[in-house]
Each structure stands twice: as structure tokens, then as C-alpha cells.
């Protein structure tokens, strides 16, 4: 990424960070990346316990059409993203408890939206880099204004999730009882899908629509395998996505490869590691029982 400027990696991480933070684009990347990682970790945990990972994936692709359309219309792609993902999210909320099992329907819409996005991109006479950055993220091109916008949206999500926290958990983990206790399933679902739409739109800046899974689902999947309490799960998911984002940004400063590649690789490695350790300890338990 930075091969035209001499950058030297030292083992003094703090000095390295100060070195890269001299550049506004790196500072912006760290600022926006941190906000997005926190939001993606929180929202992602609910995505996983609500079994909506495919819906989240689809939502980001629906957002692709929105972003491409916005680029074509000459407005901020983030707004196009939010508009389309919010619309898609509301439609999925309408599917209700079926949303988790309507893979084919959601997939069909997803494919159509991607097609629409391709059309918009081809109609756009500008640079192909626009399409590339929507698909794979362009965190190194974030402006000061975008950072503030991201922080503002992040704040909204944190406030809404905090307000709805117990209801979101209850309807995710124990739908029937939650409904019987007077929690509106549709209402909670609508609120959540709108949060998800916003979180997805924000995350696209960092990892792009194709790699949204890495930031939103994988950290939460790791958390789900480790957490005994929901609050623990959210904390683990946030820590994982934060670490991945920071490590990704850090590595991309020294190595000539995309940030999203480093983020995805880091988070995937942790996931594989957790699974291996769990499989191994499980086997040990089994042999222990056998030996008794």
C-alpha cells in the first residue's frame, strides 16, 4: 500500500503507530475502523444468536445495488447503502420467524440485487475503482466527514441496542416465551433489522459487501463458541473484530496488500484456532472418560 514511501517496521509498536498516525488517512482509518469494529461485534453477536447470518450476508449484497446506484446518481454511496439495506431489512423483518429459514427466497433477491448493482456500475462512466471499493472496502480512503458520520451512526446503534438489549436477547434465544411475556416479535425484529442495515452499511466501508461476514459473523461465531453469558459473548465478539481491524490496518501499512485481506485472514485464523483447541480438548475429555 505504502511502497512509494519508506516505512520501517520496528518492534516498538507504539512508535510504529505514531509513525502511521502522522498521515491523516491512516488516522481516519483507525478511527472509523474502531467504531465499525465495535458496532459489528455487538450487532454481529445478535446476528449469530438470531441465526440471521445469511440474511446479514444478503443485506450487504442488497446494499451493493444501493451503493452502485448512488455512485451512478452522484450521491454519497453510504446513503445508497443505508437506503437499500434498510428496505431489505424491513422486508426480512416482515418474513418474521421464517427469515432464518427462507434461504432460497432471500438468495433469489440477493442475486437480483447483485445483477442490478452490476448494471449500475456498467452505466457509470467513472472509474472501476468505485465498484472495487464497494465490493472489498476502502478504509484508507475515508474522509474526516465520513469518520464523523460513522461515529454518529455508531452512537445511534449503541444507544438503540442498549435500550433494546434484554428484549433482543429474549426474542433471539427464547422466541415463544418472549412473545408470551409480552414482547412484540415483529417490533423487535423491525428494530433489529434496521440496526443491522445501518451496521452493515458502516462495515462496508471497511471490508466491503463481499467480506462483511468476516467482521460481523466470524467474530460473533467465535464468541458464541466461548461465551457462557450473553454479555461475555458481546465482549468477545467486539474484542475479536477490534483486534482484526487493528492488526489489518497495522499490517497493511507495511505490506503491499489490501487491509480487508489482513482483517479476514486474522479473524479466520482465530476461528480455526478456537475450533481446533475445542476439538482437541473435547477429544481429551473423551479419552479421559474412557480411561476411567
Amino acid at each position, binding site marked *: 500500500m505504502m511502497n512509494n514511501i519508506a516505512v520501517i517496521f520496528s518492534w516498538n509498536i507504539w512508535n510504529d503507530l505514531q509513525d502511521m498516525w502522522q498521515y491523516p488517512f491512516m488516522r481516519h482509518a483507525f478511527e472509523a475502523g474502531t467504531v465499525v469494529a465495535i458496532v459489528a461485534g455487538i450487532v454481529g453477536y445478535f446476528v449469530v*444468536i438470531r*441465526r440471521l447470518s445469511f440474511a446479514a450476508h444478503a443485506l450487504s449484497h442488497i446494499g451493493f445495488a444501493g451503493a452502485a446506484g448512488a455512485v451512478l446518481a452522484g450521491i454519497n454511496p453510504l446513503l445508497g447503502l443505508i437506503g437499500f439495506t434498510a428496505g431489505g431489512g424491513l422486508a426480512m423483518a416482515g418474513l418474521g420467524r421464517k427469515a432464518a429459514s427462507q434461504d432460497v427466497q432471500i438468495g433469489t433477491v440477493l442475486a437480483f440485487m447483485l445483477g442490478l448493482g452490476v448494471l449500475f456500475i456498467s452505466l457509470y462512466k467513472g472509474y472501476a475503482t468505485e465498484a472495487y471499493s464497494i465490493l472489498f472496502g476502502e478504509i484508507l480512503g475515508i474522509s474526516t466527514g465520513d469518520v464523523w458520520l460513522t461515529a454518529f451512526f455508531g452512537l445511534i446503534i449503541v444507544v438503540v441496542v*442498549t*435500550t*433494546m*438489549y*434484554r*428484549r433482543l*436477547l*429474549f426474542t433471539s*434465544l*427464547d422466541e*415463544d*416465551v*418472549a*412473545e*408470551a*411475556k*409480552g*414482547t412484540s416479535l415483529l417490533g423487535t425484529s423491525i428494530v433489529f433489522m434496521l440496526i443491522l442495515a445501518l451496521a452493515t452499511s458502516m462495515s462496508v466501508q471497511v471490508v466491503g459487501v463481499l467480506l462483511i461476514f468476516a467482521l460481523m459473523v466470524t467474530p460473533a*461465531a467465535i464468541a*458464541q*463458541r*466461548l*461465551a*457462557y*453469558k*450473553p454479555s461475555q*459473548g458481546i465482549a468477545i465478539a467486539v474484542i475479536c473484530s477490534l483486534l482484526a481491524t487493528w492488526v489489518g490496518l497495522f499490517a497493511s501499512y507495511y505490506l503491499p496488500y489490501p487491509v480487508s485481506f489482513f482483517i479476514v485472514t486474522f479473524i479466520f485464523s482465530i476461528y480455526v484456532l478456537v475450533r481446533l483447541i475445542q476439538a482437541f480438548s473435547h477429544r481429551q475429555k473423551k479419552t479421559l472418560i474412557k480411561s476411567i
Partner: protein
Amino acid sequence: MSEAPKKDDLVISAKGLSVGYGPNVIWQDASFSVRRGEFIGLLGPNGSGKTTLFRLLLGLTKPLTGSIKILDEELRRGNPKIGYVPQRRLLDSESRLHALEYVILGIDGNKYGISLFRAKANRNEAIEALRLVDGLAFAYKPLSELSGGELQKVYLAQALVGQPELLLLDEPLANLDIRRSNEQIRLIKTITEKNNIAVLLIAHDINPLLPVVDRIIYIANKKVVSGSIDQVISSERLSNLYNSPIEVLKDSKGRLAVLGVEEAIHHDE
């Protein structure tokens, strides 16, 4: 819960009740009542509308006609005096969340905000509920690792928080073997008797309920009848209900076998 019995002793009173969706009537003209602390078995073939009765009591479905009151109140959603255990739940095999967390959700899961100050009190209340159902041993075990019987205890604990006066249990004995069925039913009986909680329990087999139930409500053929076991589970009464010959046999230990229901339902269709 240990308050003196009120003059009005009824937990549920229903008159001329009909339920259904649009033009489809599921059952009609039902009149029945449930008294405080009464243990009632709710029986009937699949699809006869047993769970629909629960949804009605929970305020999730409205009756087409008739009137129904719970503890002298109109039906409403989220009535804290009702504890509910639904039939099947999807469990995520990857999740490691402790059983205790699900019981805690039963306490305040429908509230807004986060429970910073109540967290400890809620935890203690949930632990108490698990102690009541003899489930302390698996309070800190992932729900996904529990056996069918242990799961039912966790669900029961969740339904018992908040001191309900009416428990609605949808097939709590499904997936349990005979020994566990008997254990579970005795546990439910002991707790509800001690706390004077009325129970409506859906089951597909009457026999595990024989030692504990006070009365039976039987739903079939769009009709709802109630009475003692001997009154309801008799060849004459059931034949009448199904409009088709049904035979009830009794063995030397008092166990009942109902024959002819399958044919009656198919005949009906």
C-alpha cells in the same frame, strides 16, 4: 402466593368460547373453569387446538365468540401471573450459554434497557428457581449439553420465576422416557401443590398424569369437555365426543388405553 384463598377461587372462567382463524373454527362453545391450585391434564388428538387454547390464555389469539377471564381480569399479553413452557425450542448446538441465563431472561427479558443494578438480584432469583426444580447441578452448564429431563427442569424454573398463579405446560413429557416422565410430573405436582399454582398440562398420554391430575379437559372434534378422569375418559363419553366408537380399556394397575381415536379422526376427515 401464600395469601389466604380469596372468595373468588377461579383462575380461569370461560363461557361459550370459540376460537379459530377467520372462517376456520378450531373449537367452539366451550365453557370451563379452573380453580386455584388445580392440576388439569389437557388432552386431545394432534391439531385439535390444545396449543391454541394456550395462545388464547396468553393473549396471543383472540376468541371469536364468548368470554374468558383469568384471575378475574380480561385476557392480556404478558400477564405476569402466567408461567409458560412452550413445546419445542430450537437449541443452538454451538452455543455455550449457561442454563441459568435462560432462567434470568424469564425474570426481566421483556424489559427495556440493561439490568446493571438488578443483575445480582436477578441471578439469585434464577438460582432459587433452579433450586426449586432440583436443577442447581446444571445451572452453570450449557443448555445444549443438557438431557431432555434437565431441559424441562430449566424451562420449568424459567416459568416459575415471578411467582405465577397459573402454569401452562405444553407437552413437558415429550421426549422423556417413562421413568423421567414420572419424575418430572411428580416434581411439577410437588411444586405447584406447595405454592397453590394451577396447572394446565398438555400431554398425549393420560397414564403418566393419572396419579396427579384433579381433572381432565379433553379437546376433540371441535368440542371441549371437562370432568374427572372417569367421567371424561370413558368409552361412552369419548364415543359421543368423536361421534365414532371409541373403547377405553383399564388394566389391573388402573392404566388406561384409548382405542379407536385414529380411526375416528380419519373417519372425520
